[in-house]
């Protein structure tokens, strides 16, 4: 009976080596106040210098979100006092951001929702303030690391949709290589604005929700907030325009202490930085960074290789995995087999060893080698699994492994015939039964031969040679 309008404000910590306006290392988890210099500590007399990689990545994200790219991106000072903000203004963008009017066509599992992107702008992050009793501790390592802010129009209607959007977005920035997407460490942050109203009545009072540091919390917080606002409207109570924090321990949103007067950020153009005007060479660099995005890749992998929905979702979830998959296929592996192995045995081993695919001993060459051995019948499934184990343990090629361990399947008809004869001789009773037309012991004899060869004999071949022998001597 109510309609909810949810817009997201996403902050992306860009993966640059240095900070956005100075040469200090942009890193997470270092000793406090080690990656600092007079510029990012807001000393008197210093000036910001724009990191090219940060502006490239900003344009890249704007491009990937189908934004209109700014021909003159202007930096502005956003003025507010806070102890973790060294200059007491943040260099940000307002009037002429990097990108505007973009869109994402979000797959809602069956239906699609176009999510308009209002803007993409580049700014600097603040430091960190840790509260410790009656003091606060300040660490400026993060101050000046590049942040990209992405603002959507309020067109999402449910917590699940926001979660899907965030997952889509996270995957996209990881594909582009501009952010590691780690919400727990804060390299991807999401705030939301929520308003609820009767359908057709437009937006209601806007409530900002902060402190949701996982996509699951985004879903839960928004579901709670939509229900809370609907409940207020049910009772005819007003919804206060305010900022609320998600409390993950209590599963609810709480009003933040309100300030006496409204913020007035007094934005004005940053005189220390000339407006950035992308030229042809710069735009070419941006295009070079524009990889095939997850949604497009998903469609292509389904069309090209016939992957099923779950399989393809798993494969495209990480760009490195999808790249691995396609390289494996290009090296001759069967696509479905490759997808299935990546989704089962390989995944299990990676989890067990606690490593990422890219860091593991498995390479597309090795997986393709293994799958080709399997497909050509030189090894069978059970051995293949063992080969993978050894591959992870010893980091060798599948060929080497089966040669060293003499694991190659016995497919030589003469050799098999000799083994069959030996088995018949050793198990006369069973052989007789089969000759008499009772097929039951066939499995037993095949098993004996497999045992004798440590599983190397090709079972189908054994079975057919066995039947042939016992039929002949009838």
């Amino acid at each position, binding site marked *: 009976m109510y309609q909810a309008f949810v817009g997201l404000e996403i902050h992306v910590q860009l993966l640059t080596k240095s900070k956005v306006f100075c040469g200090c290392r942009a890193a997470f988890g270092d000793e406090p106040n080690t990656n600092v210099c*007079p510029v990012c*500590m*807001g*000393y*008197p*007399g*210093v*000036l*910001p*210098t*724009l990191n090219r990689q940060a502006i490239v990545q900003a344009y890249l994200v704007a491009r990937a979100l189908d934004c209109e790219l700014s021909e003159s991106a202007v930096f502005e*000072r956003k*003025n507010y*006092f806070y*102890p973790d903000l*060294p*200059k*007491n*203004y943040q260099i940000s963008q307002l009037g002429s951001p990097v990108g505007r009017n973009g869109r994402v066509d979000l797959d809602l599992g069956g239906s699609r929702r176009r999510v308009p992107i209002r803007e993409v702008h580049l700014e600097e992050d603040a430091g960190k303030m840790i509260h410790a009793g009656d003091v*606060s501790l*300040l660490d*400026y390592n993060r101050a000046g690391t590049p942040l990209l802010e992405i603002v959507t129009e309020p067109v999402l209607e449910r917590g699940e949709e926001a979660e899907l959007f965030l997952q889509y977005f996270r995957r996209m920035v990881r594909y582009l290589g501009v952010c590691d997407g780690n919400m727990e460490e804060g390299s991807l942050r999401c705030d939301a604005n929520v308003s609820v109203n009767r359908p057709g009545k437009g937006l209601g009072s806007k409530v900002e929700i902060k402190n949701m540091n996982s996509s699951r919390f985004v879903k839960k917080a928004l579901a709670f907030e939509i229900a809370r606002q609907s409940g207020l409207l049910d009772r005819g109570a007003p919804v206060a325009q305010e900022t609320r924090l998600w409390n993950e321990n209590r599963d609810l949103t709480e009003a933040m202490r309100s300030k006496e007067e409204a913020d*007035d950020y*007094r934005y*004005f153009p940053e*005189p*220390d*930085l*000339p407006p950035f005007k992308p030229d042809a060479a710069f735009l070419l660099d941006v295009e070079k960074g524009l990889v095939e995005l997850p949604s497009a890749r998903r469609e292509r992998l389904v069309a090209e290789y016939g992957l099923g929905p779950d399989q393809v979702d798993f494969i495209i979830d990480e760009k490195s995995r999808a790249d691995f998959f396609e390289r494996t296929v290009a090296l001759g592996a069967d696509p479905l087999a490759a997808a299935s192995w990546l989704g089962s045995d390989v995944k299990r081993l990676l989890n067990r060893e606690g490593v990422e695919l890219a860091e593991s001993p498995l390479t597309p060459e090795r997986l393709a080698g293994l799958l080709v051995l399997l497909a050509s019948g030189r090894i069978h499934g059970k051995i293949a699994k063992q080969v993978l184990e050894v591959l992870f343990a010893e980091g060798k090629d599948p060929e080497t492994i089966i040669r060293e361990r003499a694991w190659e399947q016995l497919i030589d008809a003469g050799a098999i015939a000799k083994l069959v004869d030996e088995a018949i001789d050793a198990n006369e009773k069973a052989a007789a039964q089969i000759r008499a037309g009772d097929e039951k012991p066939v499995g037993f004899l095949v098993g004996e031969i497999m045992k004798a060869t440590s599983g190397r004999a090709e079972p189908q071949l054994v079975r057919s040679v066995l039947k042939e022998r016992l039929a002949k001597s009838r």
Partner: protein
Amino acid sequence: MNHSARWSNVLLSPDRTESYLDYARGWEKRIGSFLELSPPVPASPPRGDLAGIPFAVKDNIAVEGFNLTCGSKMLAGLKSPYTATAVRRLQEAGALVVGKTNLDEFGMGSSTDTSALARTSNPWDTSLVAGGSSGGSAAAVAAGIVPFALGSDTGGSIRQPAAFCGIYGLKPTYGAVSRYGLVAYASSLEGIGVVAESVGFARRVFEVIRGIDPLDHSSVEYLPSGQTPPRPRLGVVRGLAGLSGEIERAYRRAADLARGLGMEVSEVDLKTFDYVVPAYYTIATAEASANLARFNGIRYGLRPEGTENPEQLVKGARNRGFGDEVKLRILLGTYVLRSGFQDRYYVRAQKIRTAIRNDLQALFGAVDLLLLPVFPTAAFKHGEAGLTPFQQKLADRFTVTANLAGIPALSFPMGSEAGAPLGLQLLAPAFEEERLFRAAESFAEAVPLEHPPGYSEEWRS
């Protein structure tokens, strides 16, 4: 140049440093131009184009190993952890920093009397101010303690004290000299420049400090036209009102002299002239309100005792750290940027700035140089006998134009009257500093440089 030959040896032995300090301290008792004076003892003879030449640096420009107080209680005792690009370039050319000079607090003033740390007086007459905000630098040069000093010019802060002290003062083209290391007051208007005892020094120093800097993205490649008209067309402004008698006489005398020196003198109008000061103060204070926000007592500088929360700490530091003029300008700048007022004041001022630039561009189609007074009067007296802060601001009307337009200007001495030196300024299109130097050299031939009583070169020989 024989001038620098005399200067290049003054610090090369302990004996010489002793005579240097004797001379300097003699003056300092009367004029107080330095906040910090500690000439270096070079381990080996310096090399370079300016080898061994001592110079002073305004205390809003960073020099590692020296304080960086900006004349404010807020930063008293702060040692700079780095060196400004302009200073580094001079040091690389062999010049030696002897100390840091007094200024109006954060460069906000026209007398150096808003300094919270020391009082500077004019070497010609200690009842007079040295001008400001680079008053310490100008006084030190006029007294013959250093042949040149770095200053900064946001709205006349180099040219006006240079005029008050009877020396040369160059405000370069915006961006020609890196601002890295200059404590920002109004970033889009200001730059580092030089006060000097001669055009020769001003030129040589400018040649060393100019040029694009990777640490200042608002600095630019120095690309002059390379053409200096042999018979420059000089514009003098029609109907300038409110000048004191001595300045009016000096202005007329200079115009007459220019004709005699072979310049083509013509009268011009400045259509936007009435709006330069309000536009300037709107933009300058707006930028200042943000530039001075970083001073909050947390990371460095003054921190009040016994505060209980960040807000008390920050407000306490700013209340105690800033003087009245600084507070006034921060409040003004905050006000003109506030939502609801920004279009009326800040944005409008920026549009007027465009009009001023257009005005000057048209003007420089008709003339090569523009002659203007620097200040409506000669150096005024300290305190109540002088000018009120508001009168001082209105009096910036001749200097702020160059800052709003980003063009170079050079103030030069034009003799003295009643024991106070007189100065005028020349303006040129962007990157045409050489035109200014040539014209000032012509004037120098006709008007010999005068020194204040007590000035001596003997100790240097």
